[in-house]
């Protein structure tokens, strides 16, 4: 198998790699905000459950979580295992990343000075208005560097989808490596991930400079 045909074959999986990447961000970024809100709930039971959720999802491997989401329903309830591998992959990724994002949001929310809330309160802003107009925009600016870190990790984590035999770029590479007894696919995969992360870093630095108009 030539180098070009290896690259072409692996490129076919890039669509799926990107699907995992974008769908995970699409669901986990807002879900993380919800988790962060629950983490700060006024009900102690809700706070405790949320902490357990975060602790579990950060404390166990994503690979294991993928298996639980995909096969848990079968072992627990005897439900048939779906042939669609994208759905369980996205569910596991989104739940996992939401836990990390929630803690990043929380750190950002807690770093906003109390005076901002007080100024908004005296002006008559409701809690929702205060959060979405005053707090959240400032939080986003403060947490962007941490979000960038997670997003870069996510690019590389997409390779874990091979656990469910969801044939994204890395899984295809592994298959070729096995059948051809070649190390080349791994090097190609490395280059792909590196280039994708160059793009991520570039886009995120654009976001950061877009928010640099105030201090």
């Amino acid at each position, binding site marked *: 198998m030539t180098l070009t045909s290896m690259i072409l074959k692996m490129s076919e999986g890039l669509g799926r790699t990107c699907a995992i990447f974008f769908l995970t961000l699409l669901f986990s970024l807002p879900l993380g905000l919800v988790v962060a809100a629950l983490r700060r709930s006024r009900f102690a039971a809700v706070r405790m459950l949320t902490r357990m959720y975060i602790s579990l999802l950060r404390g166990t491997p994503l690979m294991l979580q993928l298996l639980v989401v995909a096969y848990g329903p079968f072992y627990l309830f005897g439900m048939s295992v779906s042939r669609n591998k994208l759905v369980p992959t996205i569910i596991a990724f989104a739940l996992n990343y939401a836990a990390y994002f929630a803690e990043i949001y929380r750190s950002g929310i807690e770093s906003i*000075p109390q*005076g*901002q809330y*007080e*100024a908004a*309160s*005296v*002006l*008559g*802003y409701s809690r929702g*208005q205060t959060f979405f*107009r*005053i707090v959240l*925009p*400032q939080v986003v*600016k403060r947490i962007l560097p941490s979000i960038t870190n997670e997003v870069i990790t996510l690019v590389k984590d997409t390779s874990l989808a091979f656990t469910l035999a969801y044939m994204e770029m890395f899984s295809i590479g592994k298959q070729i490596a096995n059948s051809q007894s070649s190390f080349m696919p791994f090097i190609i995969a490395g280059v792909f991930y590196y280039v994708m992360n160059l793009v991520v870093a570039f886009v995120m630095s654009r976001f950061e400079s877009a928010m640099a*108009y*105030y*201090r």
Partner: protein
Amino acid sequence: MNILEIEHLRKQFGDREVLSDISLSVREGQVVSIIGPSGSGKSTLLRCATLLETMDGGSLKYLDRYAVRDTGSGAEYASQAELKAVRSCFGLVFQNFNLFPHYTVLKNIVEAPILIQKRSKEEALQTARELLAKMGLSDREDAYPYQLSGGQQQRVSIARALAMSPKILFFDEPTSALDPELTGEILKVIRALAAEHMTMVIVTHEMAFARDVSDHVIFMDGGHIVEEGEPDIITNPRHERTIQFLNRFN
């Protein structure tokens, strides 16, 4: 007519009573200064009056609207809707400005009138520009707070409070974060407001200013009102504790 009426206000942090039996009323057009050592409860009193702290006893009333009623054993707050109406009666200027850093000067001033008071954008912009002109900041409406000096930021925050057309304006040590030169700027603005008969309650350490600008001066210590009266109590205090405190300023 009394704009603000506080009766028998009591506030404690844990077991410690920080305000005991404070009663205070402010008439329309009156300028009241509250002086006293740090930790005497001046700021906490202002924070209770502006609903930033909850009081544990007593009543709080703006015009004829009760924000808090005295139940005898405690303090009963009005409904959220009623408190919202009460909030539109007053404005507060903070020691450290608390401008919104992600908004321009103009947006800091117009957002609340448009969003909360549902005023038209044109009207809010016009009011804001008039206020900025009054504050000598007409050329800074597109600046962000970080680009302004402390004195300028404080003037914007005064404009932000005034844009809501409050019936009464509170100042919580408005010059404590500023150097003497910038302090002068702010005192000048407050003097101009007093000349227009704006109703104000000012917590301050600027004794000469308090004497000149106020109609009524309150001296607080240890959570109590120790002495109050005409502004000349600053030059001729009667109470032992007031004399002792004011001596340090002369």
